[in-house]
Structure formats: C-alpha cells, structure tokens
C-alpha cells in the first residue's frame, strides 16, 4: 500500500529544452502549487521546447488534466512546444477522456 505522496516539481534546462518533472499525486489540492512553479519557470526561461515528464506521477485526476491543458496554452503563449513524456496507463486514461492526444504530443520513453 503506497502512502499518499506529496506532489513536487523539478526543472532542468538542457540547451533549448526545459525538462519539467512531476512527482507524486496530482489533484486539486496540489495542482495550484504545481501550476505556479511550472509557470514561473516557463515565463522566466521562455524555452523553445519543454517536456513534461509524467513518469513519476503516481495518481492524477481531472485536476491534473486541467493542469496539463492549462500548461499547453501557457506554452503556446511563449512560442514553446510542449511534449508529454511517459504518462502511466492510469494517467493516460484520464488524458484520453479529454482527447488530450489531439492537443499535445505524447511520448513513451
């Protein structure tokens, strides 16, 4: 039984690409804080490309979907191409409900 894990975000810049890694459980409670941290990094560094690494996200509900959809439009505003990396099957089911595959490139590592 996994305990409820606190959501976190780390950012690494690799050339023109910003790698944003999300961790833990993404729900309404954690999404607001994550959103602030991601946007702060995006708007400060204005990368040409950004990767949202989902491989360590253990749980996500529709608030996480809102977080991702919101970041797609933020990235567009600064001319940044956003890619989603390695969502788990559970995360993928939520993304599919909203047809997110049409809005963002999804890569499995």
């Amino acid at each position, binding site marked *: *039984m996994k305990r409820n894990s606190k959501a976190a975000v780390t950012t690494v810049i690799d050339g023109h690409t910003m790698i944003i890694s999300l961790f833990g459980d993404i*729900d309404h409670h954690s999404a607001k804080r994550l959103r602030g941290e991601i946007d702060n990094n995006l708007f400060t560094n204005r990368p040409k490309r950004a990767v949202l690494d989902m491989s360590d996200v253990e*749980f996500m*509900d*529709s608030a996480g979907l809102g977080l991702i959809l919101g970041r797609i439009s933020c990235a567009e505003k600064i001319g940044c191409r956003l890619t989603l990396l390695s969502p788990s099957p*559970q995360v993928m089911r*939520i993304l599919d*409900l909203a047809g997110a595959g049409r809005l963002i490139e999804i890569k499995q590592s």
Partner: protein
Amino acid sequence: MNESTEKRKSGRPPENLKNEIRIELPSYSINEGIARSAVSVFISQLDPTFEELCDIKCAVSEAVTNSIVHGYRDGFGIVYITVKILDERTVRIEVRDKGCGIEDVKAAMQPLFTTDSEGERSGMGFTVMESFTDRLSVVSRPGKGTKVTMIKTLGERNAK
C-alpha cells in the same frame, strides 16, 4: 436530499451488506487525498486489480473535490463519505455535502462544463466518475447540498 438519510437501528445488518465505512472530513483540500487513501484501504479487502483501485480512487477524488470546491465554495462544511460492500464484489460509494447545491445537474454533468473563470479546471469531474464506475447518480438541491452515488462491481478474482 430526496432520499431520506439512512439510519439503521441496531440488530442484524441488511443481508447483502458485507462491510461498510463512514468517513466525515472537513472541507479542506488536503482531505481529497486522505479520502481516496482511506477508501482505497477499505476497498483493498476485495483484492481489486490495480486498475479497479485506480478507478475508484479517481472517482472518489473527483466527488470529494466537487464537494470542497463547489459545494462549500462559500465557506466551510463537512464532506460525508459512505462506502459499502454489497453482495460479494459490488462497491457503493456515496459522497454527500450540505453545501450550495447544483442549480442544473444535467448541465453540470456535461463534459467540459466548468464554473471556473480562470480556465484551469478541466470540467471533466463527472465524466471521470461516470467513466470509471458502472453507475453514477447525482441528486442536488440548491441551498441544501449534493449527493453523489457511484456503484462499481469488481471483476471476479480467482482464489489464491
């Protein structure tokens, strides 16, 4: 609420009721995670598949978040969660609040419906609940509160 609040007298439980948990949580957003963890622990006695457990956690998270974000948007309140195991493998989850209620339930249940002006909420909460459970019913009275009931029957597990 349209249905009368359940009050059981002591004595024998209903025949098809195998187990039950009742949780009352104040409407703090940190309790979204605590609610789904508690339900997840309770459901684990049925040895659900990982996918079934994820579905239930997600559906509970959505319902509890709705109560906190919408039901109690004007203040503080209690979210009432009852989970029952019926027959062998049917899970009935009820999430109730005494918040502001929903004016138009049918409209609120449409995919992408959101009251969020900042555009950061997906409006997919009810769609998730509907997709991840077998049956969803929403009863709401403006000014009185909302009750969401979800039923999911888990697949048979082979005896180990």
